[in-house]
């Protein structure tokens, strides 16, 4: 149920983001989901891509600092309270969400949200126990 996420260090200056997308485009790698966290000096770009290894290799060759992070893609019912019930479940289990971002999924009726937990394995166990649907990495990369 784990998903590999690419994390990329970016300086806060014009053109850096475009450089990442250019390298991915040249490598024929598709972006499935993304989020950008920023401070006054730098940002961290987080990506779920169609081919993790290829993207990582080419970005590193392009001079970027790249990391691998394990995240979880959770299907959330697209109705009021859908996300809330999941977050309350996590809260009761004292699992902390480091960050999260939504993933636009054209085909399904459900929203997909990418979670970075402080305790990933426990989070997966908890979600499985409560019959919360998760999208496996293999499925997500090919979506």
């Amino acid at each position: 149920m784990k998903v590999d996420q690419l994390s990329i260090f970016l300086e806060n200056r014009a053109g850096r983001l475009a450089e990442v997308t250019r390298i991915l485009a040249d490598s024929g790698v598709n972006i499935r989901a993304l989020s950008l966290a920023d401070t006054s000096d730098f940002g961290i770009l987080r990506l779920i891509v169609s081919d993790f290894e290829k993207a990582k290799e080419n970005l590193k060759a392009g001079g970027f600092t790249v990391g691998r992070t394990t995240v979880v893609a959770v299907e959330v019912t697209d109705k009021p309270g859908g996300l809330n019930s999941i977050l309350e479940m996590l809260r009761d289990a004292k699992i902390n969400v480091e960050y999260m971002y939504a993933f636009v999924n054209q085909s399904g009726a459900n929203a997909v949200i990418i979670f970075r937990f402080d305790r990933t394995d426990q989070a997966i166990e908890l979600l499985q126990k409560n019959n919360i649907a998760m999208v496996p990495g293999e499925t997500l990369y090919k979506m």
Partner: protein
Amino acid sequence: MIFDVEHETLPREELEALQLRRLQNVVARVYENVPFYRKKLDELGVKPTHIQKLSDVTLLPFTEKQDLRNHYPFGLFAVSRENIVRLHSSSGTTGKATVVGYTKRDIKNWGQLVARSLAAAGVTTGDFIHNAYGYGLFTGGLGVHYGAEELGATVIPISGGGTRRQAMLLRDFGATVITCTPSYSLHLFEAAKEMGIDIKELPVRIGIFGAEPWTDSMRAEIESKLGITAIDIYGLSEIMGPGVAIECAKVKKGLHIQEDHFLAEIIDSDTGEQLKPGDKGELVITTLTKEGIPLLRYRTRDISRLNTAPCRCGRTTARMERVTGRSDDMLIIRGVNVFPSQIETILLETDGLTPHYQLIVGRINNLDTLEVRVEIDEAVFSDQIKNLQRLESKIEKNIKEFLGVTARCKLVEPKSIERSEGKAKRIIDMRQSQA
């Protein structure tokens, strides 16, 4: 006013005769008491008795800052520990600081030399000295303090920092003299202005500034803004502290070296050859009277030149030109000496960061700023902002702790630091272009 007429106005032949006697004495003392010097002199085949004339100083070995570090902390002291009454130290990473020790007589001499310096700057017994040099291991604060008391002036040991409070007390106490770094005087001026205090309207009339390089245009700015006479003072902790040389208020053209205590030479910093009088080069100083840690031919790395022409103020001592640069990569940030290698050590000790860094030195509101750019690598990279910010704070904290300067750390992408011929450009000092 000349504080010590006898020594400050000696005819040059008499001064040089005194210097020779004292040089012979110090060489004999270090040969006897400091194994480092005995070994060096033996290797050169030089005996203390070989020093027959003042120019024989060139037979002696140089002393480098690194020699003090190598013998950290007390290895170069020439007297037993019980005879040392005070220690001072420059900033440094663990084990890399330079430590100096003073005997009772050294402290007395230092006080007298600072008293001479204050008098040369125009300070008299009735003056009130707002001493904003830092007190502590740094020699600035206590150095000026003892000199002010020796002269008989009133000293206010305000030390560094707390600028708004400084402005308030400067007004309330009515100090007539201020001592600090030149950049701090301008910073204080601006801070006072914001509080509705115009230093120009206060009784302060003399400023004695040192511990960092400054220019004549900066002097003009300080003098017109603060309405004072700005005097340049020179010193370094290895040699003594402030008071090694001072400008006279009367002429303000070069700093009088206290030559009865210090033998000054100018050398070519590449070849080590002594240069002709008047040539520009690296200032080298031999301490003639120091007991605690006498140094032979200490390489200051400060670029200057000497002028032995008599001065209209009446002093016969040689004058050194205002220091115009350094022959090494040492930075002076808010009066604190910082070597890039010290920052490098701190980075390596902080989570094994790569040594790819760059120091950007600037000046904002007349205060020096230091930005440390560090290239990030996979080993320390995290997908979480808070971890990277924690890393930045940790570096800032370590720099503050070890070097005593406030720095701002900025993580940058790998290979983003400009490299020339494969070697990274370590320092960008924007203060010169801003001055």
